[in-house]
């Protein structure tokens, strides 16, 4: 579960490392292009987090090199550049995901999980949390042995909560994760609330304890406590 983070902003790097390590990932740090190249040669990672703007090179080239070497790591570009062309370009050269700075750490974790899952691809993986079992690829969810019908967004929301289990997630980060550029602004937090309410109801109705803790004015926490 090793991740390589290529980021020249020390403070941001530090935050990402702390948060990901809390999640049980081991993080290797590279503050510039050449360190990154060296690290990529030495180890295999399940995921590469690559900033596009590096002091001594282009992050995009790292993505290209990784793909030319048939590196099967998941690659997430993290960049402040937020235009369609740049996104498309990033995905074209082989990145799996594109995360625009500034991002929520909880969103980063969810995406790392998702990318890591896809790269491992050892059959269908089953995620469990308490009584809940989720098969992310098949988009199915079970409580005990009973199947729970979830909408696409509810499913995404559940995966997000599971990726950030036992952590506080803010409604802003949920809105951003679920709707991307459509999230944010007023109104969408109401939608988060609505989705959360529906998901909770469906899980509880299926006989599952209420894992979703509402933390008033802060967000939500998914835990068994």
């Amino acid at each position, binding site marked *: 579960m090793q991740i390589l983070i290529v980021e020249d902003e020390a403070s941001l790097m530090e*935050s*990402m490392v702390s948060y990901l390590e809390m999640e049980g990932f081991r993080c290797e740090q590279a503050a510039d292009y050449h360190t990154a190249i060296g690290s990529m040669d030495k180890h295999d990672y399940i995921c590469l987090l690559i900033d596009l703007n590096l002091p001594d090179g282009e992050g995009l080239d790292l993505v290209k090199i990784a793909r030319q070497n048939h590196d099967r790591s998941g690659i997430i570009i993290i960049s402040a550049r937020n235009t369609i062309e740049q996104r498309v370009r990033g995905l074209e050269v082989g990145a799996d995901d594109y995360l625009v700075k500034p991002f929520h750490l909880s969103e980063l974790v969810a995406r790392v999980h998702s990318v890591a899952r896809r790269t491992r691809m050892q059959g269908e993986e089953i995620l469990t949390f308490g009584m809940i079992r989720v098969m992310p690829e098949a988009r199915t969810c079970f409580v005990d042995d009973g199947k729970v019908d979830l909408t696409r967004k509810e499913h995404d929301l559940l995966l997000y909560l599971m990726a950030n289990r036992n952590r506080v997630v*803010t409604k*802003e980060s949920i809105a951003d994760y679920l709707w991307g550029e459509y999230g944010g602004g007023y109104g969408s937090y109401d*939608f988060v609330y609505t989705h959360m309410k529906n998901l909770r109801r469906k899980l509880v109705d299926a006989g599952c304890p209420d894992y979703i803790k509402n933390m008033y004015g802060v967000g939500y926490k998914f835990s068994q406590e």
Partner: protein
Amino acid sequence: MKLLTKTTLYIATLSLFLFFIMGIVFFQFLKNMSLSELDRELTGIKEVVDEIFPHFLGGQLYGLPGVDSISIQPAWPGIEPGDRFGDTLMFDTKSNQFRTFRYLQFQSEHGGDLYVVKLFKSTMPADKLVERVTLMMTMMVILFLAGIFFLNKFIFANLWKDFFDALEKLKQFDTVKEPVKLGEPDIEEFMDLKKVLERMTFRLSSDYKELREYTDHTTHELQTPLAVIRTKTELLMQSKNLGLNEMQLIQSINSSADHLSRLNNTLALITRIENRQFTGRKEINLGNLLDDHLEKLHELVVIRGIQVDRIYTEKDLTFIMDQGLADVLITNLLKNAIVHNVDGGGILIEIDTDRFVICNEGAPLSFNEHELFKRFSRDIRKTGNFGLGLSLVKKICDYYGFKISYEYQQQQHRFTVVLP
């Protein structure tokens, strides 16, 4: 009015006026000259008449060279003595019409009897002369005016050439492009003009460039500290021994940083549009674009129980623009229609041959309609938005020459975008 037309008009008016005055004076002068010449001739003949008077009386003479006609009558009582000049109309048997004649009347004494003698001379030759001269004068005026006109044209085409060149270049000047470079005029004033213009446009361009770079850098540089605030607060929030109170405080810092970075992003986008940094050109089918975005916003629509109706009269309406901006345009309009809707309300989208309309139910604006497209104008009853969405929409419309208008009637907000 063009400079050339106006100049020509001024010159023409002034010269016509001067020529008119001069014409009248000259005409009178000529007329008087010819009359006094006639009078002088008649006076000369009067002396001869005195000498040969007896021949007339004897009936041996009927005419005199130099005059057209002569009449002699015995003087009547009460007639004033002395010479008198005058004009009269007489029937001319040669040309069968009445003509003007100049006459000299005087009295002559012969054999104790007093006679009144009148000498007549036709004014026709003199009139003809005046006429010819006037005609020639008029011809000269016309020639002169034509000359002035062509001279003016020539001056404008040659002397003012540098001026018009400069004007043309200035018209095409755009702060985004390079400063204006003008040719080398050989007229001092235009040389000055060239210097001033080049300096000014250089200044404009460089100021603009600097401003653009400044905004670019600022928005970019702000992102990192904002990201740090956000991630650190997120980390902090995960600390084990925090009460709900502390968490709420941290969350409000996090949320404000989040707000700030969204604001920053949007302002950066507006600035980039203003700087014309979007040059992508793609033919976009409006109907498909609207459908795509409605699909993405489907959930938001469903949650609020909003009914969306689509009337695409023109299914293949396309326009050419940057794909990213097209997305921003449509997203903001649709989001606006959803957010400012009422629960269970409706959205109507129409596409016509040259326009599209997005209509939604909702309460009237809480601020002036004219403020709608301005930055930071928003409904104060709703929190969390910046009031930048429609300002962004307007900027994009302006950029591509679309005309956007807004009206509110029957509880419906109606946005119409007319394509050029």
